[in-house]
């Protein structure tokens, strides 16, 4: 069986209108993949940056997959939330990116978006906070029902992921 190691960090995020941010992340894979070691999802700390406008999480990711096929290559999906001084959380953006498919070090910038409601929801969000959230978060990494959504662009999440592949050459896979 071929093996894939994903080792790296979710470094932080920039470009959001709010400043105290945290991120919930998860990895989704197809049926041929099996997670041997590591934690498949998590939530970062809440960071309030003092220097500049980038929130830093430095959240480590260390996953070990075994796979029988190339279909369902792992996808990392993210939800960025902001937390205010009262402890209330508000959605800042959703995003996803595929885990890179070649060995080595990759710097990844994952763009994010957030759902827009009608003008009522947008006004309420500006004054009171809150705002629409997805009911089923798998829309973030699948294209199936996206055409129903109207979204606004949000900031960018920066990650550095290293890939180690094992035995891919044995099966004739070039990457």
């Amino acid at each position, binding site marked *: 069986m071929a093996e894939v*190691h994903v*080792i*790296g*960090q979710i*470094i*932080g995020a*920039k470009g959001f209108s709010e400043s*105290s941010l*945290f991120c919930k992340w998860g990895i989704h894979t197809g049926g041929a993949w099996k997670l*041997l*070691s*590591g*934690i498949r999802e*998590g*939530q*970062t*700390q*809440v*960071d*309030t*940056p*003092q*220097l*500049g406008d*980038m*929130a*830093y999480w*430095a*959240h*480590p*990711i*260390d996953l*070990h997959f075994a796979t029988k096929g190339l279909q369902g290559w792992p996808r990392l999906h993210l939800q960025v939330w902001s*937390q205010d001084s009262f402890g209330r959380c508000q959605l800042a953006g959703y995003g996803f990116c595929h885990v*890179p498919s*070649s*060995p*080595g*070090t*990759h*710097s990844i910038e994952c763009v994010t978006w957030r759902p827009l409601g009608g003008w009522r929801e947008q006004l309420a969000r500006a004054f009171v906070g809150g705002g629409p959230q997805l009911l089923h978060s798998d829309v973030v990494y699948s294209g199936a029902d996206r055409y129903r959504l109207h979204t606004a662009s949000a900031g960018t999440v*920066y990650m*550095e992921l*290293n*890939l*180690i*592949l*094992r*035995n*891919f*050459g*044995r099966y004739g896979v070039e990457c």
Partner: protein
Amino acid sequence: MAAFNPTVFLLMVNGQVESALFPEFDDLYCKYCFVYGQDWAPTSGLEEGISQITSKSQDVQQTLIWNFPIDITFKSTNPYGWPQIVISVYGPDIFGNDVVRGYGAVHVPLIPGRHKRTIPMFVPESTSRLQKLTSWFMGRRPEYTDPKLVAHGEGRQVTRVRSQGFVTLLLNVVTKDMKKLGYDTNSLDMRTFSVADLSEGILK
């Protein structure tokens, strides 16, 4: 010669904790330690260290230079649990007490070669304003009981932190027998950015 069928691979890291950027603080020292998985063991070198206390330079950059050496070799059977270096920076507060100024962690680079890594440093934040005032008076700031927590992902979702500085590391990495065991770490796409590029305007 032995090792036609190796069962372990080696990772040698050497380098230095070069410098730091903390605009609001001065007279800082740092500690480093390594966090690694169960399949890893250090074979030589020092796992931890404490640096000297340094003051800011007088120029516009205001960097704090440590130039503190790191030298360690690990052996392992599995890349899972790849070592991370955890840096903690401490300095005096206004009353002279030793308080923590930042924690940060990064994986040792996986690709052999020379790497420069600038990592962000953050401190836990007090829960309430009253606690913030009390801790400022008493000199007991919020800190982690074990700095190695910074290298783990679990249990961080309830922590609130403030990022307030950067530390630059220079690391040289050499691996042995990873290819023989079937691990492929090289790549053609070597475009990387450092935290320095992301925070332009602060570090320039």
